[in-house]
């Protein structure tokens, strides 16, 4: 079996000493973590390693010897190195020696117990200790047997390096009893600002938590939970978005430490998305309040609403005639048309009643943009919903009428054929009706059948209008969801520090010489952007129903009401 030695590339110029690291016997490979220089006292080394083992839970041990001879080969040293193997008993004892500035190293193993001296093939794999330590391996999602096995092998190596972080984090100028070479972090002093921010974040988080608990306490108070109010809250997307953001803030400010990489990334993603959101919101606000944009907006809003109402009136007039040459029932047509016209009249007077206050309302509403762009967008969506309330009403009336007709026709059609729907057996049974039942049923059937086209046309037109509004609202919500869910921190990390999110590794074959071990360079494959988004996407509250297209069409055909929000009791398909 081939013996693999993972060697940190930063140790290649270290002075002679012994190699410490972890032996992974299942893979027959050694992960070298550091080189301990001469001189050292073996007892101290053993003691130190025990301490490290206790902290990191990684079985760090002395794996072999390292000989970096600048001059000619010294016989005595090599003998001494071999003898070290008896002090630190390890099986097999790896001996690596570098001569001068030669790229090619000598590697050999000593098997003390077995008498037969097996000549094992050795592969030297160089790795960047810093990158491997910092990177987080994402095993492939499709768990094919082979791929999963490889991934678990690789993650063992990654975990070994990552877990022995303590080894590298010691201060550079801190002289311990043992001198070692490994990748050296810059220590706490280098990132003084980060450390200060860490210290400051604790009280900030506590303050935030206190404020949040106050806010959520007010939100959960019983006064706001009564029926009409709670119904209103559940239908306003602004409230949903605010609640969502509140949860985010709670996640960020929680004093609990993130358990693992995923939670850490989640926190960071939420934080960055919140920051970006608020920044965009403040940008929007600064635009709105400059040069009295709000006033312009309010001035255009009323004429637009009037214009929409006029257009609707024209549409109704057209429907009351002979629209598209369709044969409508004149009497019903007139009745429906007048009913809807009166409704529009009511709507216009309501808008005009509101018009003096609109600018003030908009001014105060615009302030909410400082809570974030998403909140502002949600408010926009709610305002659209309120301003197109007449369309919604028309749609509901049309749909109810149409639904009534469709259900009536379907059951009367059964009566027409002398059948009925058996509720207990869930099927159509034949049935003998009385004479008067038949007569009235058929009379109603005839009337409903001839009135259906008129109702269907009104329903169709208003459904199209409603769908238009729903699509606009849906687009706004899509944007909000996008801002809510995009893992910006992960994407920036992938862009700037691509090794931090590893999908796997690739090996590059370095120059080779006969008789010397094979040398490989391990490089980290970054995760693709699609996978980054897929893995770290933030969960969103989805307030709209996930209907398939067919079920949507069926609902439209049967005249059931379509809402852009989800019903509580509705089953998810």
């Amino acid at each position, binding site marked *: 079996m081939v013996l693999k030695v993972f060697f940190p590339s930063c140790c290649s110029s270290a002075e002679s000493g012994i190699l410490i690291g972890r032996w992974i016997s299942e893979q027959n490979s050694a992960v070298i973590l550091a080189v301990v220089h001469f001189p050292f006292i073996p007892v101290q080394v053993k003691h130190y390693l025990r301490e490290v083992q206790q902290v990191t839970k990684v079985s760090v041990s002395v794996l072999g010897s390292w000989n970096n001879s600048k001059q000619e080969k010294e016989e005595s040293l090599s003998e001494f190195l071999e003898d070290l193997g008896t002090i630190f008993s390890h099986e097999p004892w790896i001996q690596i020696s570098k001569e001068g500035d030669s790229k090619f190293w000598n590697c050999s193993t000593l098997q003390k117990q077995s008498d037969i001296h097996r000549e094992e093939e050795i592969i030297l794999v160089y790795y960047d200790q810093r990158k491997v330590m910092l990177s987080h391996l994402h095993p492939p999602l499709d768990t094919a047997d082979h791929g999963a096995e490889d991934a678990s092998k690789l993650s063992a190596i990654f975990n070994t390096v990552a877990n022995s972080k303590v080894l590298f984090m010691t201060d550079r100028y801190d002289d311990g009893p043992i001198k070692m070479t490994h990748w050296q972090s810059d220590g706490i002093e280098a990132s003084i600002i980060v450390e200060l921010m860490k210290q400051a974040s604790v009280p900030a988080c506590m303050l935030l938590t206190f404020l949040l608990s106050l806010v959520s306490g007010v939100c959960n108070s019983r006064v706001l939970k009564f029926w009409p109010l709670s119904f209103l809250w559940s239908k306003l997307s602004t409230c949903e978005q605010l609640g969502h953001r509140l949860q985010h803030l709670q996640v960020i400010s929680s004093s609990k430490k993130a358990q693992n990489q995923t939670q850490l990334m989640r926190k960071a993603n939420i934080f960055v998305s919140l920051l970006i959101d608020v920044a965009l919101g403040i940008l929007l606000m600064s635009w709105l309040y400059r040069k009295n944009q709000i006033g312009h907006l309010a001035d255009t809003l009323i004429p637009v609403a009037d214009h929409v109402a006029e257009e609707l009136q024209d549409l109704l007039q057209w429907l009351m005639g002979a629209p598209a040459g369709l044969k409508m*029932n004149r009497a019903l047509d007139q009745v429906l048309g007048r009913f809807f016209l009166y409704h529009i009249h009511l709507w216009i007077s309501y808008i005009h009643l509101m018009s003096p206050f609109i600018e003030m309302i908009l001014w105060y509403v615009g302030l909410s943009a400082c809570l974030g762009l998403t909140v502002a967008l949600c408010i926009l969506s709610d305002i659209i919903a309120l301003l197109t309330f007449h369309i919604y009403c028309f749609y509901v009336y049309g749909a109810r009428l149409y639904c009534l007709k469709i259900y009536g026709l379907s059951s009367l059609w059964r009566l027409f*054929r002398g059948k009925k729907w058996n509720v207990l057996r869930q099927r159509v049974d034949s049935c003998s009706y009385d004479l008067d039942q038949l*007569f009235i049923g058929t009379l109603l059937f005839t009337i409903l059948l001839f*009135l259906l086209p008129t109702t269907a046309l009104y329903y169709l037109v208003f459904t199209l209008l409603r769908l238009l509004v729903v699509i606009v609202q849906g687009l706004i919500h899509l944007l909000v969801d996008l801002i809510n869910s995009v893992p910006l921190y992960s994407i920036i990390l992938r862009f700037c520090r691509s090794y931090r999110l590893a999908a796997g590794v690739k090996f590059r074959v370095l120059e080779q010489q006969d008789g010397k071990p094979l040398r490989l360079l391990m490089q980290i494959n970054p995760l693709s952007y699609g996978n980054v988004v897929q893995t770290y996407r933030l969960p969103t509250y989805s307030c709209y129903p996930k209907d398939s297209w067919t079920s949507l069409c069926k609902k439209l055909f049967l005249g059931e009401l379509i809402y852009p929000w989800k019903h509580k009791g509705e089953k998810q398909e």
Partner: protein
Amino acid sequence: MVCAQVETSPRRCWQKVLYERQPFPDNYVDQRFLEELRKNIHARQYQYWNVVFESGAVVQQLCSVCVFVVTWWYMDAGVLSPQGLFGAALLTSLLGYVLFDAIDAGVGRRESGRTRWADLKSMLVFTAFTYGFSPVLKTLTESISTDTIYAMSAFMLLGHLIFFDYGANAAIVSSTLSLNMAIFASVCLASRLPRSLHAFAMVTFAMQIFALWPMLQKKLKARTPCCYVGVTVLFALVALMGLASVSSVGAVLFASLLLSISCLCPYCLIRLQQLKDNIHGPWDEAEIKEDLSRFLM
């Protein structure tokens, strides 16, 4: 006898069973096979005049449709006033109602357990609903082309004739569907009339002629066959005369249709019956004779 022959031979007698192993191929049969062949066991021998009598139901229904259409024609032309039609219909209905009970001296009513109060209620429901809906009926098909209405009514009346229960035991028969089609046709035609009172009278008349009249006929046919024949002939003559006043060609065609149905068709049936050649035998699929409906309950 066959077995006796077989016994002389060393082979065993063939049995028509599958559960025993026999030295014959699976498709083997012996001479006894065709002994069980029967011919025309279910074929009935018809008497000519009986068939003519039974065809009266078809003639009656054709005449009903004819009378209805002619009445609608008169109403549309303005010859017949709605009040007149309603009054006549009311009178005949009352007459028929009395007759209905008089024929079997109230036995049928006692058996069915239907009270006079229920009859009155039904009558009130009919009139009230028809009267209430007549303005709606009037404007119902305003925007639809007259030809469409005619085609629809003709189609519906044809359906009424096809699905009507003439006493045959066939799957296609559905008295509910047939009555509903007739009502649909009458509503369609009534909506073409000039005023809502016309529509009301027309629909009431349709109800009487398509729902009540066949009930009386059925009872007449069962109790007093002679009377039934007389009524049928009279009704057919009335229908013919009505049609003749509208269109003489139509009357001639209709008369020939009635004649062919009542005289020619029975003759053909009896002639063709003789050519019947139905074979029955043990190869027929099993027929369940017992009434299984009690298991389905």
